[in-house]
């Protein structure tokens, strides 16, 4: 093989190794030093530059919210159990099963509303600008996924109707 080509390929391989090694090592080091939050709320403090006073307020809100959330989650889990019992091994969707589905949907909506109320309360504990940013991000992270799923389902359904 041509000597110059060998030199060029060797230099490329060496360069790629240097870049990849530096990239991997610094990425690991950064993750190791920064990705171990002290608690679940650590992200709020760093991302929204919150003071200790604001963090204390948010911790109180969080402590009040979690038991309510757990209570609703338990209710939803219980209703799901009931639904499975009603569905049993049958092949038809009975009225009772439909009622259970509606109840689960209502509980989920209640749970979602409670979560959004919590997000609003947390955003109000922050400086206005940061609060708006937090609320927008939370809406996008928690409701965005559902909208995306609904959008994809409606797109899919529309496509199917169009082909029939």
């Amino acid at each position, binding site marked *: 093989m041509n000597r*110059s080509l060998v030199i060029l390929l060797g230099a490329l391989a060496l360069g790629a190794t*240097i870049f990849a090694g*530096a*990239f991997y090592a610094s*990425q690991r*080091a*950064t993750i190791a030093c920064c*990705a171990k939050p002290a608690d679940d709320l650590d992200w709020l403090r760093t991302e929204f530059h919150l003071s200790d006073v604001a963090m204390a307020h948010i911790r109180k809100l969080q402590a009040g919210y979690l038991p309510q959330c757990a209570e609703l989650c338990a209710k939803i889990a219980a209703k799901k159990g009931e639904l499975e019992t009603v569905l049993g091994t049958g092949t038809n969707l009975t009225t009772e099963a439909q009622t259970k589905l509606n109840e689960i949907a209502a509980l989920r909506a209640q749970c979602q509303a409670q979560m959004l109320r919590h997000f609003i309360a947390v955003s109000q504990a922050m400086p206005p600008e940061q609060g708006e940013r937090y609320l927008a991000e939370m809406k996008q992270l*928690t409701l965005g996924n559902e909208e995306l799923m609904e959008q994809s389902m409606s797109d899919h359904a529309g496509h199917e109707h169009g082909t029939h």
Partner: protein
Amino acid sequence: MKEKLNQSPDPQVGALLRAARVSPALPPRFQQNVWRRIEDTESPAPPASWLDAFAALILRPRFAVMAAAVLLLAGISAGTLEGRQAARRDAQMNYLAAVVPHALR
């Protein structure tokens, strides 16, 4: 012998001898050609292709060190940026796991 003739006591003979000395004429562009030949011997042979030229450039120690330093810095910068983003995502996921109920995930 020559010196003796030059130092001849007779000034007329001495003048005749000096006039009789022949200095050959230089060929055209003699000086230019001399410099060109000196330059040719000092500079290395030009590379045959762009690949050879590039290989020669790579092998220069200054270029190699500079390229390695640039790649190292670029790798560190990109890795740090990516690491920060990954750390931010992890922390965000921790928070979401704490506040978003399982029933809604």
